[in-house]
């Protein structure tokens, strides 16, 4: 009885895999206006002559299903180019419509990995060291102030090997008191006495806190950026201490994705220093509170260091075209808190020029003394200089970037800036055609090898072989249903793992059958033969399968990506095959005996 239930169960949960997925476009209207979205879109599809499998509404969203990913992308691009900010478009692979009832019981097709679906996988390293250093620097400033306040005489504060700081003293006896005072004020810092200086480092707990905050924030921001690209089933997750793995399936514009993901870019509004001469500054006499920036044509300008408005005051940004000259522009909305200050400063400086500066930080790998280190580089360019006509308020436009730059910068400003720079340390891209080919080949290999084994078993063991085949098919059904339920991602090595499981699971059955053959020589009583064979074969089956299982588990724990998928399918396959050949086969044979089928002839 239980077997039948199990059988039904595994069929139900394996079934979705036969139906595949449809490339789909999900359209959402952001505004509350009562536009008949469905009709609008139908008209557009007719206009662009795009063929779709079906189009319908679901919960205020319009869903279009396509026959292929190419048509899906084409439609997505055409719609996106219309520049309608009220409507959002999302690409997705949706399970087939016919599976509605199956979906209700939680039965979905298996998730396909990148090498079967096409897409991009990126591992980013988050440059936390700089952040920690900056945090320490900030605290050191406070420290200096306090030491001066308490009249503690020290020789110098200097930076040690790029990470820590130390305070050097004249007299050793000052140190003890100083440490006590400092420890009280700075609970997050370690003070270590060493001869005549104190070494200063951030406490481990604080470092961990900074690291976790940065990574969590980065993951959030990256997820937002990916959403902006229109992909809804992407994965952004933390890997280890300071890495983030991003997986975006089915994306077409890979370069753009990489650009947007890795950028730390912001805009700053700064006043131009009209009091001092730019020519003198170039020759070396740079005034204290100013800095030199260059614009697109490499003309230098002297800019006051203190910015009027920074990127983090920007609440919303979108790209568009300005009304006067139809040039690409970014529409900006500022934080209400910062508006007052902004208004004040612009009012004071009416008639004066203000520069809008584009700032971008990125990391490159440089070889220094035979070691490869990550070095942070900055781009600072003036994209536009505007004269302040009146006091500026919360909404305004900025021009000076190209269309693509405007669009990308708007996305980055909208999603927020990355708290620390990131560098790409691993990148895998699988094009969609390769993905589809892999799936087909994988499926064929499973089917063909299954068929051959079934024929072989039937030929060699006759009726027992039939039992072995039933067990094998059951095993595979269990395997696929488990994989669909657990939600493990299937990769090409994973498919190979399934093929291997077919071969290895047969092994356990063969052990039993060979034993049966041997025992047949001694007695003729069917029940006795069978029970003795089972008993003897059990040990072998358990030992042999456990050793391979151990290997599978080790591979799973230490492997990554596709290898993990392979190890997982192999391990689960071994577990299901152990269950099938230790318990299930007994039930099947008992059933056969009850029905008086002469299986041993």
């Amino acid at each position, binding site marked *: 009885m239980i077997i039948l239930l199990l059988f039904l169960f595994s069929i139900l949960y394996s079934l979705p895999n036969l139906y595949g997925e449809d490339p789909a476009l999900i359209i959402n209207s952001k505004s509350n206006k009562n536009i008949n979205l469905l009709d609008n879109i139908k008209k557009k599809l007719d206009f662009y002559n795009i063929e779709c499998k079906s189009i319908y509404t679901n919960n205020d969203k319009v869903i279009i299903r396509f026959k292929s990913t190419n048509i899906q992308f084409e439609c997505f691009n055409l719609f996106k180019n219309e520049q309608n900010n009220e409507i959002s478009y999302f690409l997705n692979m949706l399970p087939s419509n016919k599976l509605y009832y199956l979906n209700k019981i939680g039965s979905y097709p298996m998730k396909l990995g990148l090498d079967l679906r096409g897409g991009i996988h990126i591992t980013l390293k988050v440059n936390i060291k700089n952040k920690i250093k900056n945090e320490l620097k900030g605290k050191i400033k406070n420290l200096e102030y306090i030491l001066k306040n308490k009249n503690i005489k020290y020789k110098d504060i200097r930076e040690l090997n790029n990470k820590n700081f130390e305070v050097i003293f004249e007299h050793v006896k000052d140190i003890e008191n100083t440490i006590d005072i400092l420890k009280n004020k700075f609970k997050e810092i370690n003070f270590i006495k060493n001869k005549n200086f104190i070494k200063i480092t951030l406490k481990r707990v604080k470092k961990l806190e900074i690291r976790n905050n940065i990574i969590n924030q980065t993951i959030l921001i990256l997820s937002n950026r990916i959403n902006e690209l229109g992909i809804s089933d992407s994965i952004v997750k933390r890997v280890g201490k300071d890495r983030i793995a991003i997986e975006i399936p089915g994306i077409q514009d890979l370069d753009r994705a990489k650009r947007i993901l890795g950028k730390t870019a912001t805009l700053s509004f700064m006043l131009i220093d009209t009091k001092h001469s730019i020519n003198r500054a170039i020759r070396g006499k740079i005034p204290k509170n100013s800095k030199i920036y260059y614009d697109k044509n490499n003309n230098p300008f002297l800019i006051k260091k203190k910015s009027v408005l920074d990127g983090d005051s920007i609440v919303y940004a979108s790209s568009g075209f300005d009304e006067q000259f139809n040039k690409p522009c970014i529409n900006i909305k500022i934080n209400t808190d910062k508006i007052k200050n902004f208004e004040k400063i612009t009012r004071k400086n009416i008639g004066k020029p203000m520069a809008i500066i584009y700032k971008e930080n990125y990391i490159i790998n440089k070889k220094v003394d035979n070691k490869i280190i990550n070095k942070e580089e900055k781009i600072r360019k003036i994209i536009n200089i505007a004269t302040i006509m009146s006091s500026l308020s919360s909404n305004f436009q900025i021009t000076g970037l190209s269309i693509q730059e405007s669009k990308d910068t708007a996305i980055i400003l909208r999603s927020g800036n990355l708290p620390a720079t990131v560098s790409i340390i691993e990148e895998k891209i699988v094009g969609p055609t390769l993905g589809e080919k892999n799936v087909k080949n994988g499926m064929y290999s499973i089917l063909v090898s299954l068929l051959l084994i079934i024929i072989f078993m039937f030929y060699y063991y006759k009726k027992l072989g039939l039992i072995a085949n039933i067990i094998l098919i059951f095993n595979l059904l269990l395997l696929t249903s488990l994989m669909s339920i657990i939600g493990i991602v299937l990769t090409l090595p994973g498919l190979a793992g399934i093929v291997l499981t077919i*071969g290895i699971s047969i092994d356990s059955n063969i052990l039993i059958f060979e034993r049966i053959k041997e025992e047949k020589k001694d007695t003729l009583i069917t029940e006795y033969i069978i029970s003795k064979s089972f008993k003897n074969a059990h040990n072998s089956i358990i030992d042999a399968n456990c050793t391979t299982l151990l290997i599978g588990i080790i591979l799973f724990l230490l492997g990554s990506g596709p290898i993990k998928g392979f190890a997982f399918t192999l391990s689960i396959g071994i577990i299901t095959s152990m269950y099938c050949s230790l318990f299930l086969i007994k039930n099947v044979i008992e059933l056969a005996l009850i029905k008086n089928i002469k299986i041993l002839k």
Partner: protein
Amino acid sequence: MKIDFIKNSKYFIILSLIACIVSISSILINKIDMGLEFTGGIEIELYVKNRNILKKITNELAEINDIKIENYYNNNIKIKIKKKNIDKAKQNIETILENKKKYIELISTDYIGSEISDDTIKNTIVATILAVISMIVYLSIRFQYKFAIGATITLLHDMILILGMISIMKIEFTIAALAAIFTVFGYSINDTVVIFDRVRENIKFKKKIDYIIINNSINSTLSRTLITSISTLITIIILIIICGKILFEFSIILLAGIIIGTYSSIYISTILTVNLSNYINNIKFNSKINNYFEKIKRKVRTPK
């Protein structure tokens, strides 16, 4: 039909030793072509329909240091650089390809930075050590420790032969190849365990491991070993035929591994275990060695 395996054991041991020596020398001389995941670097596969543009791209790319360009049939090219620090080269490649984006269809890209490749190497070594230790522990628990040692040496023998084959056939040692080796690992132990299990059963009657028991055990499990190997081989051959290039390293290592594993389980592990067991038993009862130790003790106590 009973085959006497132990009679010709000497020849098989010599055969294995020769094979091991050939393998080791090939590994030292030819070295193993490590895959991208271990060395770091970049690998890009493209399809360019227009032959002229294909030539242009190939020429421009050829100027980059350390680059390898493989030209397949059908206007496919594969660009490879296997080095740790390739940021500049990567940018150069991207610039060259960016200009001709319209004519290029990207089939796949793989970029592994130096950090990731270092990690991969570390994980591989840890995984190997873990696997070997867990094997030894498991086998020692379920069988006698002599079996464990015999099985471990057999495993090493298998690994040397497979690595030798990889080196001779110039197969690229990718992470898929590594997974295949681990699978062969498990499969070979699988086979060995089945035979040992039969030996363990037969020992219950006689308390000693000797050649007769081994022979009987191998013979009785022979049919099972053959059929399992055949069925697993069928599945691997199907993988090679259908999935072809993509899973090539993986499949061919599995193929060779299963054959080598079966052979070593039948001959090497059994012979080693028997010899080891005899050797240890001999030590216990060998009075010659005991006398030798006594002599040394006396010499140390009495000064000259």
